[in-house]
């Protein structure tokens, strides 16, 4: 494979690259051996510790599936609530009235500047102090509230960018046929910009799924990560094996979402119906580096 960054390789460059490959392999082998030795000397590679995950469905039925269900419930609830809220604030930031813009902008910037964990801790304590929500349900409520507050503000920015990505001619044309502001937004701008936003919204879902794990670590929310402790305790302190399985499930889930988002983005770029604008896509032109296309929401790497 060639790239603009380096020439097609001649014999000596090929030899040199072979040497580097060998060195890299040797270094990797040292690291792998070191990891293997560390795991082995602590007995973490014993078949007893891994066997439950291969030979029975018990760990999946008892620990992983309930945890995964809670993770997915919290993520789905958070997205469903945050999406309309985000759309509302995103549109409000584009208002013609300065005070509406100001209030919406302040709210969005405020919740974007604060860590999700702080929001979750606050929500948890607030529900315990001021409401009579059952203490079994409280962690779920707290996690969803924290996620909604943060992600609604991120989604608001996505919505705003999506609407702004439309050509101004659309608004002018709507005005020319006598549509009011609300009608322009409802019938002309929103339907078109939704396609441009979709990839960014799907990749925001990855952030939401990842952030549910905070609830497991800090708020006794029994999601996927929280299932590691009881699982490890039950199967003879197989910490490493339990973590590996849980991490693999997270990776599979989020990788599916990420791939879906980039597939969606490629499809939309080719599509004739859309404007071809995609929110937060990497800039075109210039040096194209090799690799799958990536999607950047502006600070989509929280938690």
């Amino acid at each position, binding site marked *: 494979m060639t790239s603009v960054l380096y020439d097609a390789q001649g014999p000596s460059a090929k030899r040199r690259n072979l040497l580097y490959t060998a060195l890299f392999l040797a270094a990797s082998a040292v690291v792998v051996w070191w990891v293997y030795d560390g795991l082995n000397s602590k007995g973490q590679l014993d078949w007893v510790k891994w066997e439950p995950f291969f030979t029975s469905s018990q760990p999946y039925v008892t620990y992983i599936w309930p945890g995964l269900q809670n993770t997915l419930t919290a993520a789905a609830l958070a997205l469903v609530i945050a999406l309309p809220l985000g759309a509302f604030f995103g549109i409000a930031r584009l208002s013609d009235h300065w005070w509406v813009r100001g209030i919406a902008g302040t709210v969005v910037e405020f919740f974007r500047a604060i860590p999700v964990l702080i929001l979750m801790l606050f929500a948890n304590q607030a529900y315990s102090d001021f409401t009579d929500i059952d203490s079994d349900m409280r962690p779920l409520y707290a996690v969803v509230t924290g996620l909604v507050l943060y992600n609604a503000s991120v989604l608001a920015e996505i919505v705003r960018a999506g609407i702004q990505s439309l050509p101004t001619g659309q608004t002018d044309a709507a005005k020319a046929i006598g549509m009011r502001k609300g009608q322009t937004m409802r019938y002309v701008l929103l339907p078109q910009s939704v396609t441009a936003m979709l990839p960014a919204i799907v990749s925001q879902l990855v952030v939401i799924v990842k952030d549910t*794990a905070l609830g497991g670590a800090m708020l006794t929310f029994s999601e996927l990560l929280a299932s590691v402790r009881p699982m490890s305790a039950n199967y003879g302190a197989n910490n490493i094996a339990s973590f590996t399985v849980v991490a693999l499930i997270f990776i599979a889930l989020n990788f599916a979402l990420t791939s879906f988002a980039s597939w969606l983005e490629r499809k939309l770029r080719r599509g004739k119906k859309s404007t071809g604008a995609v929110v937060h896509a990497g800039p075109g032109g210039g040096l194209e580096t090799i*690799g799958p296309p990536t999607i950047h929401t502006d*600070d989509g790497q929280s938690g």
Partner: protein
Amino acid sequence: MFDFLDMNELLGAFWVTVKLTVYSALGSLIWGTMLAGMRVGPIPLMRGFGTVYVNVVRNIPLTVIIVFTSLGLYSTLGIALGGDTIPVINFRLAVLGLIAYTSAFVCEALRSGINTVPVGQAEAARALGLSFTQVLRLIVLPQAFRSVVNPMANVLIALTKNTTVASAIGVAEAAYLMKGLIEEYAALLLIAGVFALGFICLTLPTGLILGWVSKKVAVKR
């Protein structure tokens, strides 16, 4: 009303947050740049490694990584990173976790920056007979760095907020202190307000200053 407010305690906790941020930022800048170099380089094995690393790490929750450093690395395997007391060990483990996680995002930001450099620049450099390392070091990366100040600022802000996850393994930073305070005192709104303000004081100037810097250093085309 403000009886929960022990200024030394509060500043101490935020100081830990700042230290976590700075160490992790430096570490992930170095490791992230190396990853980006691998991902655009001519050696297929390194390219594959970079791609797999970024795609795997980006899709694991940071919380899983941080909890793993404590439960998996320290408790199970006894890796203490040279620390001898529990607070020191946890702090170092948290920095390790944050670096491992954040460098994936630094790498992606940098790679998108490399994409903004015009093809002609690299072609001209190759025509002059520069090697891949020279093209990257002398021509492409300096321009790429200047165009990614803004995305990097977003990574840095996200990192600042992500340091709160370190409280999951008991690093005594801001979120950890807040959790203790709201359980002890009945002034929830005030306490949450103080910590929210603290984080706004950390993240808002970062965004503003680096936004200004990005305009200053951007390569005009």
